[in-house]
Every structure is written in structure tokens, then in C-alpha cells.
């Protein structure tokens, strides 16, 4: 299984971590819950749920750390019976990310910590200094949106004249 990434520069560092640390799952996400890269998940909607929860854990642990220790907790670890979870903060020059990984007895917390530090360094070096923002074509946006939402809700979509149409999702 390969990693899926949002931006090409993330792929090599993430794949290196997965291979070296023998991770079962790996998630790199923005602190707002948006996925940047993942390994181990098969459905996008499941990745989104995992990211939302990981972002929530990270954010609330950060706030708890500020309350209790005067600074955010940057790493968290849970030892389950068969699987273990590690969550860490990935500070880069451009922005901050959150990393979550799940591993079993094929790996260990010590190894994961070592390779996590390497991942942070690889991401820092691989990160581009600028991003481009190209507008998305709005030509068919409203039509497609109306059609797809109507299909999701089991309704007939609105036609161009505001009436019902019988388009279907291809």
C-alpha cells in the first residue's frame, strides 16, 4: 500500500516514515483537520473523520497543556493492548502540521519517536517556499452542485429554468 498525499513534496518523507517505522496507519494533517497525507486508510470519508478527531485531540491537549504546564503538550502517546498511537506536532518554517501514527509490536515507541524526528526534518527540507492558488473554473459549478446535492438527497435537481430536471450523476 502506498501513501496518498495532498502535495507532492509530502510523499517521500511520509513513505520513508511508514517504511522505516513499520507503521500501520499514518496521517499528516493541518491543525484545522484537513488531511495533507495518509497511509493505511482506504476510504476518503474515513480519513476525514480520523483527521477531525486527531485535530480535536491535538487542539484540546494543547489547550490543556497551556492550562496545566504553561505551554502546549506537543506529543501524545497511547499504548493499547495490540496497537499504539502516537500524535506529534510538526513545526515547519511555513506552517505547523499534526502527525498521527498507529503501530503494533512490529515497531516501538522509541523507533517511532526517532523516525518521527526524521520525518519532521525531511518535511522541513522538502517543503516548497511558496504555493500557487489557481482559481477553479466556475463554468459548471452551480449546475453540478445542484445536480449532485439533489442526487445525494434523493431529489430531482433544479433545471436551468428553476424547474425539475432528470439529470443523473455519471
Amino acid at each position, binding site marked *: 500500500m502506498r501513501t496518498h498525499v495532498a502535495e507532492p513534496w509530502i510523499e517521500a518523507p511520509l513513505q520513508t516514515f511508514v517504511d522505516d517505522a513499520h507503521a500501520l496507519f499514518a496521517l499528516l494533517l493541518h491543525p*484545522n483537520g484537513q488531511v*495533507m497525507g495518509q497511509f493505511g486508510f482506504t476510504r476518503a*470519508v474515513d480519513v*476525514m473523520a480520523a483527521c477531525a478527531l486527531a485535530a480535536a485531540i491535538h487542539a484540546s491537549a494543547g489547550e490543556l497543556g497551556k492550562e496545566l504546564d504553561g505551554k502546549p503538550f506537543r506529543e501524545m502517546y497511547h499504548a493499547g493492548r495490540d496497537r499504539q498511537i502516537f500524535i506529534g506536532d510538526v513545526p515547519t518554517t511555513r506552517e505547523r502540521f499534526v502527525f498521527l501514527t498507529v503501530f503494533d509490536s512490529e515497531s516501538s515507541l522509541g523507533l517511532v519517536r526517532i523516525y518521527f524526528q526524521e520525518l519532521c526534518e525531511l518535511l522541513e527540507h522538502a517543503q516548497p517556499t511558496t504555493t500557487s492558488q489557481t482559481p477553479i473554473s466556475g463554468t459548471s459549478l452551480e449546475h453540478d*452542485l445542484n445536480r449532485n*446535492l439533489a442526487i*445525494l438527497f434523493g431529489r430531482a435537481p433544479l433545471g436551468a429554468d428553476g424547474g425539475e430536471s432528470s439529470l443523473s450523476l455519471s
Partner: protein
Amino acid sequence: MSLVNYATREITCKIVYYGPGRSGKTTNLHYIYEQVPGDRKGQMVSLATQTDRTLFFDFLPLDLGTISGFSTRFQLYTVPGQVYYQATRKLVLHGADGVVFVADSQARQLAENIESMQDLHTNLAEHEIDVRTMPLVLQYNKQDLPKSLISSVPELEDALNFREVPSFAADALHGTGVFETLRGIAGLVLKRLSAGSGPAPAAAAAGGR
């Protein structure tokens, strides 16, 4: 912050349902969850108290299919409405691409609606977002209740809709207005993306299939 992957042509957007406690934010998500086929949604995640009051957030990932050539996914969040969860609301609001403000139409809840709208403005400001630029729609929920108990839509417009954003009368429990509200905010968010003025530098989306 919408994530746009131009290589794989994928878009992921974050929508937050905001509003006072018990206004019907979670009910909106429950209705959407029940309507959408299983292969187009993920599990609905609810971090709630034992009495089903939202503690942290509800979360529902939706696959909207292909829009303008991009595989489009929406992440729907709710916030806890009670006043004392202000810090949590601010966390959930982080990176939102659009906001649905769910107002409780009951006349006795008018002050709570106004307070929650002010709280939204405060939290957006703390994230350094100008409320005038954030895609926003209003939903006036519980319009099915007896007229004697609720504020009319014009009264609610007067009290809450100073930006004159799209607004929708709703009965979220039975689904009235839920679809229209989602379509309204999705349209605003995607139009903003197509205009190239997303709230943050576009990155990309990654996921499974």
C-alpha cells in the same frame, strides 16, 4: 481553508454549523446523515455528553461527487452552543470555509441568537477573519412551531441578518429547509473558490478513494 489538489482534482471544504444551544445544529447533521447513501458519507462522529448535548463537535464527512471537474468532499461540523464552550467553538471554527448559523426561531430565544451571532463574530475576528468575507448563510429553525411562540422570518432577518446573506426557514427535525441550507452554503463556498479568493493559500486534498 479549502484544500484543492490540482493533480488529482480533489477539493475538500470545511463547513461549520454555528448557533445557540438547542437551536438544531446537530439535528441538521442527523437529517443529512439519514438522507445520504452509505457510499457517499462516513460515520457521523458525535463528541457529546450523556444527555446528547454536543460537548466538542459533531462531524459528518460527505462526498458530493464531481463538481466542475473536481471530486468534491465536504466536512460538516457543529459546535457546542452553550455559552461556556466558547473556547471549543473557537477551535472548531479554525479553518472553516463557510458557516451556517442555525437560529432558534422561538421568540424567547432571540437574545441567545444575537449573543451567539456576536460570539461568532468575535471568534472569527480572533482567527483574523473578516466576517464580511466569510461565506455565511442563516437558517431560521423551528418555524414549524405555533406562530405565537416564534419570531417571524422578517423579525429574525431584522435582528440577525445585517449582511443580507441567504437565509432559509427550516424545520430541521423533519428536514424542511435542511437541503436548501446546505445547498446555499455549498454554493457560496465553491463560488468563492472559483473566484480564487479562498480564505487561505490553497494546498491540496489527500485521501483514499
